[in-house]
């Protein structure tokens, strides 16, 4: 690690599981990969409401939040998290979504303010690079 990156603040990321499904393999892998890449990772655990997630993002003063949804309820849950963050005046958190998201829904999610959507097959390196770049570009 170069001295420049050592003095830099660690990126703080919340990895969150909104909704009622228990598919946490992806969320846990991403959480661990981001941590191994030197970020500070807060994993919310399962079955979180949008309200709980927004609160965690604010309390943890996160730079980014990754929402993992594999229940098909992303078009209900993701807009709600985005809206709650906006209502609280949080505008600069990088929001990403991962999971089984049909291609048709991706443009709509991005229009709402989601920075990127990662679907099955995305590599952890790809996600790490994206979060680094997007947080730096804020």
């Amino acid at each position, binding site marked *: 690690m170069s001295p420049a990156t050592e003095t830099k603040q660690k990126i703080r990321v919340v*990895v969150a599981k909104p909704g009622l499904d228990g598919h946490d393999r992806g*969320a846990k892998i991403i959480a661990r990969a981001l941590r191994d890449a030197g970020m500070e990772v807060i994993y*919310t*655990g399962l079955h979180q409401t949008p309200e709980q997630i927004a609160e965690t993002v604010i309390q943890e003063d996160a730079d980014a939040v990754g929402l993992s949804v594999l229940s*098909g309820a992303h078009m209900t849950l993701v807009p709600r998290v985005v809206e709650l963050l906006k209502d609280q005046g949080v505008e600069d958190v990088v929001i990403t979504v991962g999971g089984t998201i049909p291609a048709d829904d991706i443009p709509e999610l991005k229009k709402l303010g989601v920075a990127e959507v990662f679907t099955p097959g995305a*590599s952890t390196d790809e996600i790490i690079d994206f979060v680094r770049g997007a947080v730096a570009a804020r």
Partner: protein
Amino acid sequence: MAVEFEARRRAHQWMEEVYAETPEREATFTTISGQEIKPLYTEEDRADSERDLGYPGSYPYTRGVYPSMYRGRLWTMRQFAGFGTAEETNERFHYLLDRGNKGLSTAFDMPTLMGLDSDHGRSLGEVGVEGVAIDTVDDVETLFAGIPLDEVTTSMTINAPAAIMLAFYVVAADEQGMPAERLGGTIQTDILKEYIAQKEWCFPIEPAMRLVGDMIEWSSQQMPRWHPISISGYHIREAGSTAAQELAFTLKDGFTYVEQAIERGLDVDDFAPRLSFFFNAHIDFFEEISKYRAARRIWAREMRDTYGATRPESLRMRFHTQTAGVSLTAQQPLVNIVRTTIEALAGVIGGTQSLHTNSYDEALALPTEEAVQIALRTQQVIAHESGVANTIDPLGGSYFVESLTDELERAAYEYFARIDELGGMVDAVKRNFPQREIADAAFTYQQEVDSGKRIVVGVNDYRSDDGAELPILKIDKALERKQVGRVEATKARRDSAEVERTLAELRAAAATDANLMPLIIDCARARVSEGEMIASLQQVFGTYSEAPIF
């Protein structure tokens, strides 16, 4: 002895003098679970056939649980289905039965699995999305309308609220004139694997286990054709475990239920024949076949030697298999048909009693009817064209498969010992032991894929853009409103005094040792909803949340 020694000497000589002289290609020769595989297996790797193999239908059942296996009867082609309200799923059931499906299997939506009614705030956006929404006995009546419940067997994939769903089924059938003793089928009920892997829970572990015990006891007496629990490795594997972990944690869960039933005073030979299992069929062909063979042998041995079972039915491990959802890719989805075929073949060669084949579009959404039809046809081709069903345990005696079977068995016993050191499965789960082992395995696998050490066609190699635009099944948003309307209508027309009375009795009994099944049935008959029963029981039992580890 001299012959054995001679065989070993020749194998070693071949390895050192012939094989070692030929270069290997650049690749990792391990199973998908990371098990090292040798270039060649020979006589020296073979099991003690007399003790470990036996014959089909006889101890230790390594070669199959029935004497004739598929020459007597093919496996049951049982496709899992459910979405929207009971009406839409009932139509899909009729579609499947018309195309040769022999058993029904119900997928429930997330609110139903978590014990929440469709009109609950937390259900919003999830009603009827990943399965069918069921709130009251009225929904179950609609779900099975026009289906002769004594002719098909039904499977219901639900766990934390399983006792309530079984009560709905029994009441719905009874109101159609079908007594409980004629109902055949399976309800999953395996709550331990929920805490380990699938994570759909309602109560803390101990009261949840008590409810499982109540159900096993009640159905042992009232429903001779019913399997009250399907001990499931499927979800453990989907969560990222290795084959050995799936085998070990599932069997250990099974032994835990057996121990509980014995502690409640049940005779092992009364309930053990009703236990069934549910395994994953992942893409590593030989490893999966070996896994099923090892599972049968371990179960038979432990049931006989540790738990004192004597009836052959108690020793036979019968299982359902589903191909690995986790192996499907969103990229080039038609390639998933090939993956599913290999996996289904492993299930069949491994001696499964029933099989669900996944549809090629399931990494994208719930399957379309066309995709489901191809999945079912895959099983029919295997059954009627491939010839693999002509003989029993066709890979029995294979040096490689016998050796891998032994190896998986050894790995399972190693896990049993570690779990015992932690005080048994319930304590191991509370200490996150299986959860952590699975998360580690999932992470290791992902690293292998990300580094290119392991190739997944279309994902990290052989990529192409074609085939991305598939028609997928979209769940109509109006179905959620329709279901909310259905539960509100039932709640409006029922006798509220009867609802209060039955719920109060259920709550009171929950605080005692009484078997709760009869009280849950009373509630179901009074049109008490699933969510109302769960909320009442939570007042006594409490709720559960896990420490998030990664």
